[in-house]
């Protein structure tokens, strides 16, 4: 037919659909529907089929025939709707994705005793390493995406919660800044890994981006959801120190054999058998309750609100976090559906009690032959040696150390998404957000805390209070234009972002007080000191997506960031990225291959940056700091009267000092280039799906604190852009639906990561003699380092002496290989030996459901990670009685290595800490239609930290940084839970 036709396109509800593409098949001619869903077209001879398509809907072909007016109803593409993935400033169909993005949704989250968001996804994603800092309740975690591209600057990813980039640089009095978010409120947890995905975040994207979205309300009836849990945590393992009897024998034998001299040690031995470790730990019970209500107010304002309360107790006596969370999401659509509003408020209130973690180390060092209590001046007190160098009584440390904080944190934003009336393809998006935290803390140490004060002589306790307010403000604005032309689709976006970060700390004076009598301040140890800082980040960004025939995809992004942390000359950084995607399955040659249900190839390149320089906001220009009181230089006359001046209030004052601070006016961005290729696959009708990726990253101009020429600045080390690092990696993931019958469903997921990090440059001036930068300070000496950054080696490679062994394979005390044979043992004989980061990480998980039963389990393996056992290396016979005034315990390892003096620099203590940890096992039972139709329930039980398989001889092989010392044991936790929905 030839001539004009017109029509209207409607959605499944019969509502008009604007912006629908209508293309005449076989041509590039077409039209789009207007805001009322209407379109008009002029047809030539022979043009009689229309292709009607719209994002999220199944495309339809319409034969024109003799009709001139059409009403076309599109059906939603359910598959595609589910496969939308959030990315920076928007979302994209999974099929159209060109970057390396991994997403885990609520259904796949880890189960059991989860208190922090990152625990939900641990082990679920290749290339993402999450190591919690120990077993403390609500403990922080180190998150590393692809190993971390910086050396000394922050390696933390950027975290964005419902569109608000949140400060991850720590909140005073809070162990983990992510704890603001109740894990129960989280809907998706998405990780952007390669530069083409992250470059839209420019200067903060080098270490990956984590996007967290929370659950929203929906149209329809009211749903109420209750989830409750009770968990019991118990320590799984203690450090092997000597028990009382073994200690007595060991000490006696050691003196007899002349391993140590009796400087009075024998006379100090007691007759008790105290297991100090079992005294400081406990079995802890924790509870967690959450109620959420979701629905729609007057069928117009979908909402979801939740209240959560958790009371989390640590296995170290007295350790507790109490958290109350409130969340509210309002997502109304206004102005005839043209304006979508997304309001999100999350508030968390935490009450922390921090047990004194010094007790962990003291429990290892405290003599097991001494009793817990002793009599002193007619009073029953905690046993103490009364010597400032002696181990403290760990129970006194716990009992008399009161450290608590109250933290409130609000993250909120309003996002407006407006579709223009005259041009429905054009959208404007405004996002205004706030991240504000307030902390108040107090630390009181009772004088009876058994020499816990350095200045024990004062005979008094100490008191200190602090508070902190952090306020980060955000304003984002962007415009987006999306259109389809025939077989082409494109989508362009450009925007502006403004962020202000402000922080104020008020640290009260630390005063000596006579606790518990509280007779008032006796003496001030440190003066009150406030600290205030700010920085601004202003950005322009844009992205263009182009898709041809849904087969060939191109994404280009560009971001320009300006930071107040750099001088005007170096302030602006440009971060481009380009990526291609090829949906190979849609090519003719694969369409016929039934076994392959999906196949997509991706390749991308991009540049990202880093500007997190340890919170230093003014490092690029010269500043002067006023010295603190008690770091003063006080001249005096010969009568002892000090040099003073009269201040503006007429008061006589001692002089403080004024110090010029080091600075670097050439400071600029750290840059990371990333190349990434990936293959997304689906086999046998998507029974097996997954991804295979390879990447190469190179970070240049690392923000690094390095040695500068002596005399050229106000410090020997100044922050600058020095050094390069290279990372190569492979990532593999597969999800397999093994059985999918009506009653039985069984799936398994496996992922594996290989990471190879190398330092490729460390100094501004090349030098062959430069051995590197020492890192990894160890306990047992001041300024003793176990690791080094060296060119050609992995960062933080262990750098120690090579132990010499006798013919029986026993290490010889203090004997090391003289590597260069010069007859001297010095730093030239230190050798590089293994690295603390795992080379291969594997994650495994499985889900099984049979009718109403569910079972799930997940675990992780790390291979090639080495740990320096500082607990062992800091223990030797001569530590038993160093001065003859007190005794200290030693580790069982001493009985094996027979070291008479501590050997901090022996590679003997570096051990393979490869492990497999079964993180959790969970079972559940669903009860449907309870108490009438509408109520569903689920009971479940789980065990977290089920077991660890490892050859490592310390307490736990999973040590971030690879130096095992004073480690808070990760407990095993048993949880029983109930969910009810109606």
């Amino acid at each position, binding site marked *: 037919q030839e001539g004009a036709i017109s029509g209207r396109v409607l959605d499944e509800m019969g509502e008009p659909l604007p912006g629908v593409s209508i293309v005449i098949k076989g041509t590039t001619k077409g039209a789009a529907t207007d805001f009322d869903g209407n379109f008009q077209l002029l047809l030539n001879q022979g043009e009689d089929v229309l292709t009607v398509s719209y994002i999220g809907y199944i495309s339809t072909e319409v034969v024109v025939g003799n009709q001139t007016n059409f009403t076309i109803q599109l059906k939603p593409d359910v598959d595609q709707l589910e496969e939308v993935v959030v990315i920076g400033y928007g979302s994209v169909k999974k099929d159209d994705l060109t970057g390396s993005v991994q997403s885990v949704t609520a259904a796949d989250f880890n189960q059991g005793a989860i208190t922090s968001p990152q625990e939900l996804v641990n082990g679920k994603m290749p290339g993402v390493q999450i190591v919690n800092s120990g077993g403390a309740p609500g403990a922080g975690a180190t998150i590393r995406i692809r190993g971390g591209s910086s050396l000394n600057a922050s390696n933390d990813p950027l975290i964005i919660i419902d569109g608000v980039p949140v400060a991850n640089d720590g909140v005073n009095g809070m162990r983990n800044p992510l704890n603001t978010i109740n894990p129960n409120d989280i809907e998706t947890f998405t990780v952007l890994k390669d530069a083409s995905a992250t470059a839209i975040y420019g200067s903060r994207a080098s270490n990956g981006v984590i996007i967290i979205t929370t659950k929203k309300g929906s149209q329809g009836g009211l749903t109420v959801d209750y989830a409750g849990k009770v968990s019991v945590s118990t320590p799984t393992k203690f450090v092997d120190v000597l028990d009382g009897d073994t200690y007595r024998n060991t000490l006696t034998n050691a003196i007899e054999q002349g391993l140590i001299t009796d400087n009075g040690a024998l006379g100090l031995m007691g007759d008790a058998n105290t297991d100090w470790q079992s005294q400081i730990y406990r079995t802890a019970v924790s509870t967690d309750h959450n109620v959420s209500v979701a629905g729609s107010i007057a069928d117009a304002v979908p909402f979801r609100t939740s209240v959560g309360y958790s009371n989390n107790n640590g296995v170290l006596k007295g350790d507790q976090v109490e958290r109350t969370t409130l969340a509210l999401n309002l997502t109304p659509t206004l102005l005839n559906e043209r304006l979508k509003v997304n309001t999100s408020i999350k508030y968390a209130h935490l009450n922390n009690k921090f047990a004194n973690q010094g007790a962990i180390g003291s429990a290892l060092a405290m003599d097991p032959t001494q009793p817990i209590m002793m009599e002193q001046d007619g009073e029953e007190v905690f046993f103490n040696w009364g*010597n400032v*160098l002696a181990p403290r009584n760990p129970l006194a440390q716990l009992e008399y150390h009161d450290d608590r904080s109250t933290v409130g944190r609000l993250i909120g934003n309003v996002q407006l998404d407006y579709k223009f009336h005259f041009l429905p393809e054009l959208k404007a998006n405004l996002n205004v957000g706030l991240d504000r935290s307030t902390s108040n803390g107090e630390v009181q140490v009772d004088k009876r805390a058994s020499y816990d004060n350095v*200045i024990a*002589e*004062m005979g008094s306790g100490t008191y200190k209070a602090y508070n902190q307010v952090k306020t980060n403000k955000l304003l984002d604005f962007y415009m987006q234009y999306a259109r389809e032309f025939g077989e082409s689709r494109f989508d362009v976006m450009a925007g502006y972002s403004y962020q202000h970060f402000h922080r104020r700390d008020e640290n009260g004076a630390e005063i000596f007080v006579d606790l518990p009598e509280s007779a008032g301040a006796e003496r001030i*140890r*440190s003066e009150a000191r406030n*600290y205030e*800082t*700010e920085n*601004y980040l202003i950005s322009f960004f844009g992205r263009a997506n182009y898709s041809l025939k849904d087969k060939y995809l191109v994404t280009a992004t560009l971001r320009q960031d*300006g930071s*107040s942390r750099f001088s005007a000359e170096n*302030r602006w950084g440009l971060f481009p990225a380009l990526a291609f995607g090829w949906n190979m399955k849609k090519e003719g040659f694969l369409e016929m291959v039934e076994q392959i249900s999906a196949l997509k190839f991706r390749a991308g390149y991009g540049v990202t940056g880093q500007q997190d320089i340890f919170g230093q906001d*003014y490092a690029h220009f*010269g500043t*002067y*700091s*006023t*010295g*603190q009181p*008690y*770091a*003063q*230089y*006080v*001249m*005096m006359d*010969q009568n*002892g009267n000090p*040099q003073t*001046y009269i201040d503006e209030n007429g008061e006589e004052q*001692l*002089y*403080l*000092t*004024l110090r*010029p601070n080091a*600075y670097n006016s*050439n400071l600029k961005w750290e840059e990371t280039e990333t190349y990434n290729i990936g293959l997304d696959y689906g086999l046998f009708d998507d029974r097996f799906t997954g991804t295979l990726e390879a990447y190469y990253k190179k970070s240049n101009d690392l923000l690094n604190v390095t*040695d500068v*020429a*002596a*005399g*050229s600045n106000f*410090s*020997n*080390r100044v922050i600058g852009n020095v050094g390069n690092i290279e990372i190569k990696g492979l990532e593999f993931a597969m999800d397999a639906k093994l059985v999918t019958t009506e009653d039985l469903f069984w799936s398994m997921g496996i992922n594996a990561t290989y990471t190879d990090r190398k330092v490729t440059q460390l*100094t501004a*001036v090349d030098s062959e003699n430069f051995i590197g930068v020492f890192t990894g300070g160890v306990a047992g*000496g*001041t*300024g*003793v380092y176990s690791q080094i950054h060296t060119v050609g080696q992995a960062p933080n490679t262990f750098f120690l002496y090579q132990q010499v062994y006798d013919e029986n394979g026993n290490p010889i005390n203090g004997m090391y290989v003289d590597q260069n044979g010069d007859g*001297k043992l010095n730093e*030239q004989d230190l050798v590089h030996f293994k690295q603390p980061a795992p080379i291969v990480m594997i994650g495994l998980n499985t889900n099984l459901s049979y009718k109403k039963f569910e079972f799930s389990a997940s675990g992780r393996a790390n291979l090639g990670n080495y740990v320096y056992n500082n607990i062992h290396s800091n223990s030797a016979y001569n530590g038993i009685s*160093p*001065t003859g*005034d007190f005794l200290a315990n030693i580790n069982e390892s001493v009985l094996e290595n027979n070291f008479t003096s*501590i050997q901090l620099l022996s590679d003997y203590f570096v051990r393979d800490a490869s492990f497999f940890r079964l993180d959790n096992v969970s079972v559940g039972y669903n009860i449907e239609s309870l108490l009438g139709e509408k109520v569903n329930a689920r009971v479940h039980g789980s065990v977290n930290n089920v077991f660890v398989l490892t050859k490592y001889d310390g307490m736990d092989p999973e040590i971030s940084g690879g130096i095992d010392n004073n480690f808070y044991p990760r407990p095993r936790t048993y949880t029983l839970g109930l969910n009810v929905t109606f």
Partner: protein
Amino acid sequence: LSHLDVEPIDENLSTADKVYDSEESLQSGLNKVYAGFVIGGNAQGDGDPDVAGFDGGKSVYWRQFFNLQELPTDEMKNAWAGDPELPELSRLAWGSSNASIRTLYYRIFYQITLANEFARQAKVYGGDFEETPRMIAEARFLRALAYTHALDFFGNKVPKVMEEDGVGAFLPPQFGESERGTELFDHIESELIAIQDDLLPAKANYVGQANQVAAKMLLAKLYLNHAVYRGAEEIAYFEKAKVLVNDILTSGYRLMGASDAQAGDQVSPYELNFTADNYTSDEIIFAFTVDGKYSQSWGGMTFIMNAGASAAMKEFTGVDGWGGNRTTPMLVDKFEDNDDRALWFTEGHQKEMDELMSFTDGYGVLKYKNLNRDFSKPQDHSFVFVHTDIPVFRLSDAMLMAAELEARTGGLTAEGLEWINTVRRRANTSEKTLAEVQAEGTLDFILDERARELYWEGHRRTDLIRFGKFIDGYQWSFKGGVAEGTSVNQRYELMPIPPSDLNANPNLTQNFDY
């Protein structure tokens, strides 16, 4: 976009143009230059350290100056396995990355940079103030002191950093081409002469403030050691030194003596220089002041006292004691029985040093006390942070220098001998005749007398080198790593330039044989 131009909002942070608005603020800046010798950072307990890569407390200038002057000598040995750089110094077996050496090196240049900045800014912002020339002169004195230490420990090839160089990305050249040479020596000499008139005269200053006599003392010491520093002896420098020493001896200072004794004294007149109330001493020409409350640091005197004491000595020292440093039998044997200066703690200790790593091998030293002269505790006393000022230059040192200068230029006279006997008389020990002194070898005797009078005051390594006894010709416990002592390589007369600076600054070259 103008938001990106920030200025500090912290109440304790400012910029030079804003902060230097008064004489008081300039004095605060100058006090930092002083504090840099005895405190490690901007916060108490050496928090917020000035230099990086070291433990704050270990990074203190005077702590490492003291270690480097004393540990490689017969006066002091250390037993800390956890701080391996100290036993290494004790054995005269240090390598180029010894942490103590590196610390002192960077501290020296930190002080120089700090003094340069002060002088630069004071000229710009302090032009109208009456005290500005005096303050600049003091900063230049402190810079000369640091440069003298650079010359003494690291030689003539060290970086040349001048006031006009500014701050930031530049690579300082070497002062001279060779380890021993004239360039740095001449620079220090000209500085000390130039500032003389701007400094306060003797006794017009506070304790802890440098005056004209302190500058003369520093210059006299430079002249006295000229042969080592310049690589050749020139009598003219000894003659210049004599003039200066004569000025010093007549400038109004006097030895503390029997007439200073008071009721309740628990110490001899000699020890009045080393108690918590040593600010009253008329003998100290220049000291760095230390206050247990207002200048809390783990370096400086807190280190000198605590590292040299154990808990058993607490009653006599007034500090907890960390059990690290003690002395060798060679020092103990230099004293006659009745000498007030022989201040040993022997209980539980043996005199002989069989084991380097055992604190009780070798006598403890009770020279310094965190107690007043009557053994009362000073105000705000603690057993950690001490109140005792660090004597840098004392009059008795000048007296022994007078005798030495005579011995080096024509021979010791009766007048010179009287200076030695003045010092000995005060210590209640025997006076010597010229014949007795000559019998022992005049220079050998003077070197020993310097040890007796000045041990643990940071002079010994320089003295042993000047007298040619540091490398061979005299052995002491654990010299060269063996218990009885052995000669060591010539290179140990200088310390190695830290490899980190060779690396950061290609203009530099390593000292011989490191």
